[in-house]
Structures are given as structure tokens and as C-alpha cells.
């Protein structure tokens, strides 16, 4: 049995086959590891119509691209993608396997780990090598503390926190090996199935893409009050409204606006935190923001420790005056 070698990245692609940004982020995470180990990076490209994008993976830094391209894999399904990764891993024999901590990656990781009889850490960042093995950091206790995790067994498997790394600039025309992998799977004998996909109906800018986010918490008080946040989006360009889990669970808005440890992870230029305490479960979703602006009537609120600018006061008094002033400064 030859020695494990290299870092295998499990790529994610859009319906049209383009590599999703998370794949680039994984390359950023892997490149430091590759340097420390002196071992190459390879990519698993699974889907339908993905072979055409193998060069994109090579241009990000893959020496080898393992391609599983078949209609069976058109849509992600744990049952089929686990088999694909296992088939690829048995050929690649990687030291480390990285996936994004995305809705699919976080589900795929543990299935692969069990099959490969190894351990896994999820939602990690700060990846490094120690004594030929991966070390990775993750949050616990609702985001309050950090744990650096070690991996005694090979391959070391980790899912990587979204937006923990920046997508690197791809090079052009690099060379690499493309290896087609056949997966022994009987499409007629699956015990699960993909039924359908429905697009999110989002009015305006998607939260994950917004340059500025206006997030309301439970302190907004109610649905009508929460809706006043939309007034801000009319004056602040490139902004979107979001919510804490407490606000969403209280039905001030839809669950799709939720940011936090079980919601969306964002890293906008500006994050308005309005009438929210800044509990660590929420901060886990927005701590990547470049500038956090807090408005809260509780001077002890944790959010003030996390912000760039803060105003102590009832948002009902602060925000209308803030808005009026913005309009004045505009005109």
C-alpha cells in the first residue's frame, strides 16, 4: 500500500458546469498545505458536463483532475456522490481531502469519512500542517471558543468554512493530467433520488452577494417594525435586508433571510446590526464582515465588542434620523 500523498479538493459546480467560488476558496486553503508538504493538489470534478471545466481546475492549481462525468451525477445526491468520491479517493490516495462547508459538502464529508474509516472536522479554517498531518480550527460553544483539531488517521478530511479564504486569481494555460474515473453504481438500484430544485425568489440583491447588509434582530419587535429596514435599502445602494435566527423564528420575516451558524454566512463590506445582541451563534455568520455598524439600546450588548462603529440608542429613534441625514447628504 503506497503512502498517502497530496491534497484532493472536491469541487462544486453550478448547473451549467462552472466551478463555484467555494472551489477557488479550497484551492487557496490547499496551496499553503501543498507548499508545506511538498505535495500536489488534485481535484475531483463530479457532475454532468463537467469535463469541459477541467482546465479551469488546472488553472487554479490542480496537477490532476479526476473527472466523473455522467448523467447520474447531474444533481448532487449523497448516495451517488459518496460513491464517486470513494472511487476517486481510491485512485488518488490523498493525504488530505477538502470540501466546502456548503449545504452539500457538509453532508458529503461525514459519509465519505465513515466509508474511508477516518475522522473529519467540519466548518474549519486556519488550515495548516503539523508533522505531516492536517490541523484545522473550528468554532464551538455557539461560536464562543475555538478548537484546533488534529487528525490521527488518513486521509485527513475537513470541510472548510465558506469565505474563510479568498478565491485566488487563476493562471492561464497551465498543464495538468485529466483522469476519467468510472464509478460502479447502478442507477436503477438507488435508494434515494433527487426530486426537483426550486429557485429562491429573491427581491433585489441576494444576501450572500450584497455589498452592504442590513440585519435586524429580535429587538426589532415585530414584522411591521422589521419591514421598516427595507426603507434603508432604498437609500443605501447595493444593500440587502437580513435577519438573525431569533427574528426569523419569531416570524418577523422569512427563514431565507437568516444569517448565523445555521443560516447564511456573509462577508460584506458593511454590516448593519440593528437591535440584535451579537450572540456568538449569529456572529459566526457575519464575523467576516469588513465593517460592522451596531445600533442597540443595550450598552452591554456583545455586538459592540464586534463592531467598528456603534450607537447606543433605541433603533426607532436612531434609524429614522440616520436615514434623513443620509438623504440630506445625498442631495
Amino acid at each position, binding site marked *: 500500500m503506497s503512502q498517502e500523498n497530496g491534497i484532493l479538493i472536491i469541487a462544486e459546480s453550478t448547473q451549467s458546469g462552472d466551478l463555484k467560488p467555494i472551489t477557488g476558496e479550497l484551492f487557496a486553503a490547499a496551496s499553503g498545505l501543498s507548499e508545506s508538504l511538498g505535495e500536489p493538489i488534485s481535484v475531483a470534478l463530479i457532475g454532468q458536463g463537467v469535463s469541459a471545466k477541467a482546465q479551469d481546475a488546472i488553472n487554479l492549481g490542480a496537477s490532476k483532475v479526476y473527472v466523473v462525468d455522467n448523467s447520474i451525477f447531474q444533481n*448532487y445526491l*449523497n448516495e451517488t456522490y459518496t460513491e464517486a468520491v470513494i472511487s476517486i479517493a481510491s485512485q488518488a490516495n490523498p493525504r488530505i481531502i477538502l470540501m466546502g462547508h*456548503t*449545504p452539500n459538502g*457538509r*453532508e458529503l464529508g*461525514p*459519509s465519505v*469519512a465513515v466509508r474511508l474509516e477516518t475522522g*473529519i*472536522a467540519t*466548518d474549519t479554517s486556519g488550515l495548516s500542517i*503539523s508533522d505531516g498531518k492536517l490541523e484545522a480550527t*473550528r*468554532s*464551538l*460553544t*455557539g461560536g464562543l*471558543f475555538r*478548537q*484546533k*483539531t*488534529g*487528525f490521527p*488517521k488518513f486521509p485527513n478530511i475537513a470541510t472548510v468554512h465558506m469565505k474563510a479564504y479568498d478565491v485566488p486569481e487563476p493562471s492561464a494555460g497551465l498543464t495538468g493530467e485529466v483522469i476519467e474515473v468510472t464509478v460502479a453504481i447502478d442507477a436503477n438500484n438507488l*435508494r*434515494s433520488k*433527487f*426530486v*426537483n430544485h*426550486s*429557485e*429562491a425568489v429573491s427581491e433585489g440583491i441576494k444576501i*450572500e452577494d450584497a455589498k452592504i447588509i442590513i440585519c435586524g434582530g429580535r429587538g426589532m419587535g415585530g414584522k411591521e417594525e422589521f419591514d421598516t429596514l427595507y426603507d434603508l435599502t432604498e437609500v443605501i445602494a447595493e*444593500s440587502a435586508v437580513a435577519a438573525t435566527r431569533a427574528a426569523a423564528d419569531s416570524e418577523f420575516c422569512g*427563514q*431565507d433571510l437568516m444569517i448565523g451558524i*445555521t443560516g447564511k454566512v456573509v462577508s460584506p*463590506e*458593511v454590516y448593519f446590526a440593528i437591535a440584535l445582541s451579537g*450572540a*456568538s451563534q449569529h456572529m459566526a455568520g457575519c464575523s467576516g464582515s469588513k465593517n460592522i455598524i451596531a*445600533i442597540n439600546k443595550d450598552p452591554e450588548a456583545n455586538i*459592540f*465588542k*464586534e463592531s*467598528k*462603529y*456603534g*450607537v*447606543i*440608542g433605541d433603533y426607532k*429613534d*436612531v*434609524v*429614522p*434620523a*440616520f436615514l434623513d441625514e*443620509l438623504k440630506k*447628504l445625498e442631495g
Partner: protein
Amino acid sequence: MRIIVTAKQVPDPEAPQSSFSVDSATNTVLVAGSVPAAISDMDSYAAEAALRIKDEVADTKVSVLSLGKDHVLDVIKRPLAMGADELFLIQDEDLANGDAIAIANTLATAIKKIGEFDLIMCGRQSADLDQGIVGTALAAILGIPVLTNAVGVRLNDDWIEIDRIVEDGIDTVAAKLPALVTVSNEIGAVRYATMRGIMAARKVQPTIWGKEDLGVIEETDPFTTVVDLFAPENTSNVEMLEGESAADSGRLLAQKLREERLI
């Protein structure tokens, strides 16, 4: 139909942050004695999802399984008070302290002892560790299909169908029973325990198992290790804007953000 719901008892995450600290010597989280025990909230949503099926399907038994080292009966019986039928507790410190995959192995061993099931429902991730590993790993160990982070759950004959949030919308996926589903808070409100439910739950005797009852669990090397546990440095550098009134502060904020070209 039999549904097994896994539930983890955790220190109440709503407790003040100051109740939690790190013991650097042992790399563990210390919890103040004043912090009450609670069921990890996603597990309550899993119980709720199971009970909604029980509401619809005659002859459904909901069995709750919990691995822990210091179960508080009133707390861990909550799903019974909500309407679940029986409770299995595995009580062992070493097993409870295991890494996620080790825990999944323990639960799998217990489930084989419990017997036949149609569906297993788990919270998508625990309130104290948020790893989201155990449910999926458990399915892989048992060799059954898994569907995770369900925001909607529907039973169609012998298939279970769920909706799950993906980056650009919702995927609907389904699995043939027996299967495992992990459940998220978006399924909607967890039912209250009724007075009658609480009284009934008091009378239920949980089945309690220790390490020996589960049979030999192979001691292997740990799947992951804790190299370090720490509180991140707080680099608080906030500039507070204070006017003569809240409204005045709001105006100052607008001016500042414009000055800094942030908006």
C-alpha cells in the same frame, strides 16, 4: 411505523456567555454549575418532525435515544412529554466524550439493540459543538440513505421526502425507508408539552444502558483529537458615536459613514 429520534443533552446555550470558560490544562469547556441542562434545540425539531408523522400515521411509535454522562431526567424526557413513546439512555462518560464518528458508532450499536426501525430523525447539528457529523455518519454506519438539513418533511408511502436549503434555492430529495433525516429549525414551531404529556412522561421508565450492555465497542485510535481549545482574542476597537440624543447619534453615524465612504 417506528421512528427513532436521537437527542443530546447540552448546557443551555442561552445561558450568559460568562458561564462558559476554557480549561487550558484539559482543553475542555467548563460550564458554570448554574447553567441548566437543555435538549439541543435541533434535536427538539427532530422530535417535532417525528411527532408530526405520528399525528398522521396510525400505529407509529416514536423512540428517543440519547447518549450522555449526566442525564437530567426531567430534561431528557421532554420529547416524551411532547408525545414520544419510549426513551433509551446510554450513560457512559467515555462514550459520551468520544469524537463525532465514535459517537455515531455508539448510537449505531444501540440502535441495533433497539431493533427494527423505519426512520431515524436527528437534529442537523448540536447546540454545543455545531459539527453536523453524527446524523450523517450514523446513516453511513447503518448503511441507510441520508437526507440532511430538512426544512420540510413529507412521508409518501415508504419514501421520505424533504426540502433542503441549497445556495440558490431549495432542493427536494427523497429516500426509501429505512432512512435517516436530519432536521433544521425551519420546519417550524416545536409543540409545547401538555400537562397530560408531562404527567405521562413522569411515569415512563427509560431503558438505561452502560458500556457493558451495548457489548464490546472496539477501542480504536481517536478519529480526531483536540490539539488546543481557546477563546479567541477580542480585538475590540469600536468607535462609539454619541450625540445629544439617540436621533443626534443617528445623524452623526450617517455623517461618519459617508465621510469614510462606507456607504
